[in-house]
């Protein structure tokens, strides 16, 4: 991409030159001065306009001070929480709610419905292990398996990236001749951020900025996921996975 940029630059330069040449005869001196005046007015107003447009769409209650590993404290004390509590938790965002129909009559104690997960990940930056992310609730409130995914709200340098985190994909898969199991695949989240840098000359005489270089390490993501699975009471379930599940009965 970087090799193409000089050519793109040249093309744009030629286009700009041609445009100036073409429209130049039609732009009078007075119009030029007025255009420049208008541009200067917009420039002078730009700090206010930037502040105004930056506020539009801001929910106002967004907090960047999410307690570190908040989701772990919920998982550790899962008996104290209900699904509604998690939905109303300020530090959690509900990413996805998925309903998977299961024919209860096809399962029995000898042939139970299997919830299987080998999916886990240790985050590359924080080395946190996200194995223990499941809360399984056996309830008569549902007729099919309902999976609700929560994500601890994640911020990088003050920018919320929660909505860029991909929900994990749960699906039924056949794992033996006559049995089905619920399995999960983790979707990779491609997170895009924009950062605005200052002109270095602003810090020309400010020795507190070390060599006026702003290169920084890639930030870490302080976040984690909770999957609340509601299973119909009539469905015999067998849990298979890397770690014990957290079960509410």
């Amino acid at each position, binding site marked *: 991409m970087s090799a193409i*940029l000089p050519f793109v*630059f040249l093309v744009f*330069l030629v286009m*700009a030159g041609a*445009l*100036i040449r073409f*429209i130049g005869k039609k*732009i009078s*001196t*007075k119009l*030029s*001065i007025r*255009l*420049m005046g208008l*541009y*200067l007015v*917009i*420039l*002078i107003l*730009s*700090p206010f*306009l*930037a502040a105004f*447009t*930056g*506020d*539009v*769409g*801001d929910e106002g209650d967004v907090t960047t001070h999410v307690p570190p590993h908040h989701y772990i404290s919920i998982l550790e004390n899962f008996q104290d929480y209900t699904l509604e509590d998690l939905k109303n938790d300020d530090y959690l965002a509900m990413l996805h709610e998925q309903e998977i129909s299961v024919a209860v009559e096809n399962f029995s104690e000898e042939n139970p419905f299997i919830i299987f997960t080998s999916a886990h*990940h240790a*985050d*590359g*930056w924080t080395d946190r292990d996200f194995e223990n992310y499941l809360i399984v609730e056996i309830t008569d409130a549902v007729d099919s398996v309902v999976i609700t995914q929560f994500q601890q709200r994640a911020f*990088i*340098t*003050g*920018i919320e990236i929660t909505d860029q985190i991909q929900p994990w994909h749960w699906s039924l898969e056949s794992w033996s001749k006559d049995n089905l199991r619920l399995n999960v695949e983790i979707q*990779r*989240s*491609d*997170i*895009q*951020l*924009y*950062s*605005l*840098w*200052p*002109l*270095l*000359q*602003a*810090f*020309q*005489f*400010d*020795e507190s900025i070390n060599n006026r270089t*702003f290169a920084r390490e*890639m930030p870490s*993501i302080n976040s984690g996921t909770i999957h609340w699975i509601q299973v119909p009471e009539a469905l015999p379930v067998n849990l298979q996975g890397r770690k014990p599940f957290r079960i509410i009965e």
Partner: protein
Amino acid sequence: MNSIIHNESKMTVAYGQFKDKLYHNAFSFTQLLALQALGYFFSFNASMSASGSDFYYLYIQNINPIPLFTMTLLWMIIQAFSLSGEKKREYYMVSNNFTAYFSDIAVLEVYALIIGIPMVFSGPMLQLLANLSLGPFKPEAAYEAMTFIHYLSLFITTTFYALLIGAGAYFLGILRVRYKSFFVIGSIGIIILLIAWSILGIRFIGPGFSIGFEELSNFYFQETNFFIWLIKIIGSIGTLYYLSWLGIRNLEVKN
């Protein structure tokens, strides 16, 4: 000819020419707008860094005003060349080399001051454009750390750098007008000399030998003491002005 304008002092004529050039070169402002637009475009595509794991991949698109700054300086170079080139066609009937020189320099200084304004507001303007096109986002910590002093520093440095670039381009423009084809030959000769110097430098001094735009710009950009920087920059601008004057003072103006 006994026109009463010949009774005016040189400075009065130069001032009149300055106002005249400023007004009649107003189309250059449209050029500035076009180059600024181009600069904003490239500032949004300045650079990108990426890193991640199997589950998270983070792309950071850096919006950097350096291309905008470069395009703005390019405008200054174009204007300096344009002003120095007008000597060829005897723009003013009452012009002499002093008034032409003085008014050119004054116009360039006004242009440098004008450049300072868009550069000071380049950050908020990029922020505004980013808000409109990318959605709300927070700027880099260093950008947020900027205070009034930093903005003032940005205005002063940008203005002086624009003056320096403008003075350099004006000097080259005067040489071009004065020496015409010899200027082209001389330019080629200097390029060959510089290449030869680089080759010989690496051959006899070693890989540590380095001379280029970066080393030259560091002479100004790496100076953190304001007064020493001011001496360097004013000294450089003054030298270029003086060299320009030497080039123009006995220049024969022809149609």
